[in-house]
């Protein structure tokens, strides 16, 4: 039970707590329904947050955990550039600069102060991933598209038209720009309406006090959760297969130090700044550390600055997890964040082996592609992110094909893709034998096949896990490798990235991969890691997986030691013998 310092009564507190949550939900609803980029409306790649007058994060929805702390840095950068004394109620600040409040260029953040009776009540912040800001695959941040420092988008309600024109000039999809700005503006106004409603009802002081107490509330839950983890030092590593320009893995190392109700997260020992675009600015690395821990600390607490108070971050400068200009950062939200999560969970598996879950696919496999309409010659840009599986848990299997912890984005529906773009989606189907085997196996990955009707290009794809899949925990096994392929018009498959079946290697961060009309891009994602020894899995569950083609009969035998009859029933005797033999061999 908590000893939260209370100045407002518990009933009002609960109503305010819920109202802050609702405010963020309403912002997201408005943004999603009114936006124009497919990546926002169909893929839900955005977050909305509210801040108190001290620019402390109060609450956030929460479609993209990787935005959780990043928005804190955005709001601070905005207020540093435009001090609050200079701001009025109808001012909106925009930015996306990875080295000034942003993380990677496509994530565009808008910040608006909210006043009530002339006093500052807080801030509304909306961040959305735009389809295109001119990003390219480069070794210099200048090649990653338009970089906006904090700038006034609206001053006293008046639009900065010149700025909007610059943004449109810099985008491959200028038609979406104004609609998305308008949608984000709608979200900010929704927050203002809700704040005003609360202040009307309770008075501005009570609302501000409620914000302070919501921070304490989250802090309290965080403290108690950390206290339940045994004190100690726990270390683990993970890596991105390559930075896209060199062939070597880029490693990160994490050391968790649990002491009482505090936890230290130290990335010392991680590799230097990478040449290719996987570098993760401080804001992004911090976000990834917070949300990765949140799964096991306080999944239900409001995501807010109260959690930051119990976590001590050490992110050494000039590593790829805290780079300086001009390092490219385009893949940070995806490639870097997901590996940070996997490493933190692997470290936690030593501290709380009976509560941990195995790492997920640990990729979101985000790509941007273009296809030229064969009839009109018009170039269409689209984007998608085929998910992988989640890891096995102490009590059940991981989820199939589910967006990585870093986000919660939707895939592009085949029928929408085919209606709007000159492509054919020929497959989005689960992949047999992709999940890590275990007492509780991971969820399966997916097979995506996109055929280009005209000339096609993978402008950019971030990816990893092409060397060995995702690791298991407590004796669980790795999942399958991810594969990036071209399917020729003759139906032949050839590797275009990662480790090919013949052992050759090509960088898995793709850029400028061209396709002839009628050729297809094929991608196979991996499943989650396994939890526990697969030889202890209930043979009936293995048989069900084989009947559902999640696991092949061969893998059932090789990895699970389960022998099935012709009609896919468990051969008990043969299974017992096979498992005994497999145990002796290992």
């Amino acid at each position, binding site marked *: *039970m*908590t*000893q*939260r310092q209370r100045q407002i009564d*518990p*009933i009002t*507190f*609960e*109503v305010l707590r*819920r109202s802050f949550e609702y405010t963020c939900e*309403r912002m997201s*609803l408005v943004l*999603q*329904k*009114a936006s*124009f*980029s*497919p990546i926002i*409306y169909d893929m839900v790649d955005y977050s909305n947050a509210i801040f108190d007058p001290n620019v402390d994060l109060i609450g956030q929805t929460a479609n993209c955990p990787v935005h959780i702390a990043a928005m804190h840095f955005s709001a601070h950068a905005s207020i540093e550039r435009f001090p609050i004394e200079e701001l009025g109620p109808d001012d909106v600040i925009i930015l996306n600069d990875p080295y000034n409040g942003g993380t990677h260029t496509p994530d565009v953040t808008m910040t608006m102060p909210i006043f009530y009776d002339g006093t500052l009540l807080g801030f509304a912040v909306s961040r959305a991933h735009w389809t295109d800001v001119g990003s390219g695959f480069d070794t210099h941040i200048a090649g990653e598209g338009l970089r906006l420092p904090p700038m006034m988008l609206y001053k006293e309600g008046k639009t900065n038209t010149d700025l909007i024109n610059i943004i449109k000039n810099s985008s491959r999809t200028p*038609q*979406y720009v*104004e*609609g998305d700005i*308008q949608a984000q503006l709608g979200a900010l106004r929704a927050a203002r309406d809700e704040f005003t409603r609360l202040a009307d009802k309770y008075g501005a002081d009570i609302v501000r006090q409620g914000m302070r107490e919501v921070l304490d*509330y989250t802090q*309290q839950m965080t403290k*108690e*959760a950390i206290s339940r983890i045994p004190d100690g030092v726990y270390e683990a590593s993970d890596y991105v297969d390559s930075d896209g320009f060199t062939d070597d893995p880029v490693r990160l190392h994490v050391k968790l130090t649990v002491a009482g109700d505090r936890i230290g997260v130290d990335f010392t020992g991680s590799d230097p700044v990478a040449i290719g675009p996987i570098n993760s600015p401080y804001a992004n690395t911090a976000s990834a550390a917070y*949300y990765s821990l949140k*799964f*096991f600390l306080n999944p*239900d607490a409001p995501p807010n600055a109260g959690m930051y108070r119990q976590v001590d971050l050490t992110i050494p400068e000039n590593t790829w997890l805290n780079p300086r200009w001009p390092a490219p950062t385009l893949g940070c939200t995806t490639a870097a964040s997901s590996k940070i999560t996997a490493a933190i969970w692997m470290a936690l598996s030593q501290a709380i082996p009976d509560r941990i879950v195995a790492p997920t696919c640990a990729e979101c496999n985000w790509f941007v592609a273009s296809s030229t309409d064969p009839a009109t010659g018009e170039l269409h840009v689209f984007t998608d992110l085929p*998910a992988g599986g989640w890891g096995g*848990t*102490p009590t*059940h299997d991981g*989820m*199939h*094909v*589910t*967006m990585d*912890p870093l986000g*919660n984005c*939707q*895939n592009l*529906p*085949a*029928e*929408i893709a085919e209606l709007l773009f000159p492509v*054919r*989606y*020929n*497959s*989005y*189907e*689960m992949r047999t034998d992709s999940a890590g085997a275990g007492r509780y196996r991971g969820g399966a990955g*997916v097979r995506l096949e996109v055929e280009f009707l005209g000339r096609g290009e993978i402008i950019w794809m971030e990816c990893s896990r092409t060397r060995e899949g995702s690791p298991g925990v407590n004796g669980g096994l790795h999942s399958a490798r991810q594969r990036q392929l071209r399917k020729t018009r003759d139906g032949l498959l050839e590797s275009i990235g990662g480790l090919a079946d013949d052992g050759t290697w090509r960088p898995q961060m793709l850029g400028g991969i061209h396709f002839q009309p009628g050729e297809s891009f094929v991608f196979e994602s991996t499943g989650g890691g396994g939890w526990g020894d697969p030889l202890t899995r209930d043979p009936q569950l293995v048989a069900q997986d084989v009947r*559902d*083609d*999640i696991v092949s009969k061969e893998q059932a035998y090789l990895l699970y030691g389960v022998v099935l009859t012709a009609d896919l029933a468990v051969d008990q005797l043969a299974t017992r013998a096979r498992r005994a033999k497999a145990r002796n061999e290992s």
Partner: protein
Amino acid sequence: MLRVGIDVGGTFTDLFAWDARADGSARVRTAKVLTTPADPAIGVMNALSAAGIAPAEIGTIIHGTTIGTNALIERKYPEPVMVTTAGFRDTLEIGRQRRRHLYDPYQVKSRPLISRRNRLTVSEKLGSDGTTVKPLDRDEARRVAEHIASLGTKNVAIAFINSYVDGRHEREMREIVLEAIPDARIALSSETRPKIRELGRFVTTAIRAALFPVVGDYLTRLEGLLAAAGSNAPLFIVKSNGGMMRSATAKERPEELIESGPAGGVAAGSFLSNLLDTKSMIITDVGGTSFEACLMENGRGLVIDEYELEWEMPLITPMLDIRSIGAGGGSIAWIDQGGSLRVGPQSAGADPGPACYGRGGTRPTVTDANLVLGRLNTTLSGKFQLDYEAAAAAIRTIAEPLGLSILDCAEGIIEIVCENMAGAIRMVSTDRGRDPRDQTLVAFGGAGGLHAYTVARAAGINRILIPPFAGVACAFGATTMEVRHDLEATLYAPVENLDPNALTHSFTKLEQECCHLLEKDGITPEQITLERSALMRYIGQSYEVATPVPGGNLDTAAVAEIAAAFHREHKREYGVSSESFPVAFVTLRVTGYGQITKPEAGDLAAALGQGDRNETPSVKERRRVYFSGQKYEVDVHDAARLNTGQRIHGPAIIEQPDSEVVLPPDAFAQIDQYGNIIITGEEGVR
């Protein structure tokens, strides 16, 4: 002849019947009997007997049933086989690849409606323009059909990519399945809901195939029981869209029954809206476990195009926008990890129930809080004696750690649960661009009147209406329904290069289909009303806004009018619009209404209305009740003895047959000519 409404709920089966031409007390009959879960048809027959209705007296029966919904939620149906385009075997299971809880590492997804081993694929493909990319592989299709036959399955869903444009491959597949299984029941996605976005169409088709046997068998059984009892009255079923259809049609379109229960309550709201000429209402229903809210505009409930049956299982038939949250009398109050007082969504249910039921429940519930505060009659409307001490003890378990008195804690529980209910009201109003302050809150259900005033205040609503039939509102509403069908087709076309004749043609075709369906339900052409609407969007968006479309031949000017209407609707729903953005049509919808024996609102009102003036005073007793920490001795009125025009100032309680209406100190109630209780903040407000 009686028009009989029967609503089968989780606990009770409610009946409301009326006959405008009968005399006096015979005009209205009601009954409440226990639901018979093993076969709900028995409960329906029991309700008829309990109401003293002879089969020969029945003119029409309108029946609301959640049998389909329950079967889906519990996955209790003979599992169908689904056949899809190669490459899309898992659309039903992958959904849109999102997770429900952002940070829960142990979460699992809902079990798919059809398991992977029963999802089969064939090679075929149509383009998004309807051209053949790959013809159906008939040999493979035959092998698939043989496999289905070998499984012994009779129910089949066929759902191919892009079949919203043209269902010819699906129809070809159906023929092949029928060759192998002549008595198969087959649902085609192109016939179920020919709308773009494969997930919704696949889910909706799977639901139709899964429910064919469930709904079909149930209705056949009920028809048999009614016939055996000597009634040949037409049986209508309440639909999710707020209308009804003949049982024969319901067997063909079982996916349209998902909100068959609560839709009756919304129809009751429509009736009140028309009777009292109140344009904007929010209909609410509070029971033991859930709170439901639906916004009504110009006498009709708002409709949504997509309903999340479960996580990432969108059902895409037009349905009333009824939002349900876990908040009711049984909702449990608890302290969370961070020390905040929470109420619900967990419920003590009927067993053990609230602590005051004395059946072993020890956790404090909303009902316990109401009892402690004196707002609830200690015999639960005469059903059984409630245990005050048990309620107080349960609340003490959370009041002490919070440092609150039992009474303050109890009031806090009520305030928080009412805030949660107000949140659901915001979802149907604010979130859809409607201001709750313009609405009248209509409260149905056993716990509706207990909380209506506090909920309304939390949502900023100034006027509350509680009708005399609040306890059997769904059954009542069923008797006021029209036949209604919504038919849709996809027509993706930017407004600028749209041929108005093509638009007219598509609407006319839908209208013909709709009339055909209405006539099958026994409606004659002169009884039919048709309305057109279009789901439209800004090009680039993927969410549509329903926009009204005029009838008749559409020309360029009419299309421009429709586009202008779209901008207005978009502005209202989402707060923004831009006339410079290009607009496209996506889905065309025709709604057809038909009334067989039109119930005259006046007749029904007369049936409901106050009879002779009561001479006996309405106050039956006095009771001690707490409001804002203060003790009041308040009048308890018997609703049956209230007179038209009577005014009651809070604090007071009004007891209805199955529920109570709580009037806090600043509330003021007036009784209208139909026995409705109308509550406002203070005398003189509206």
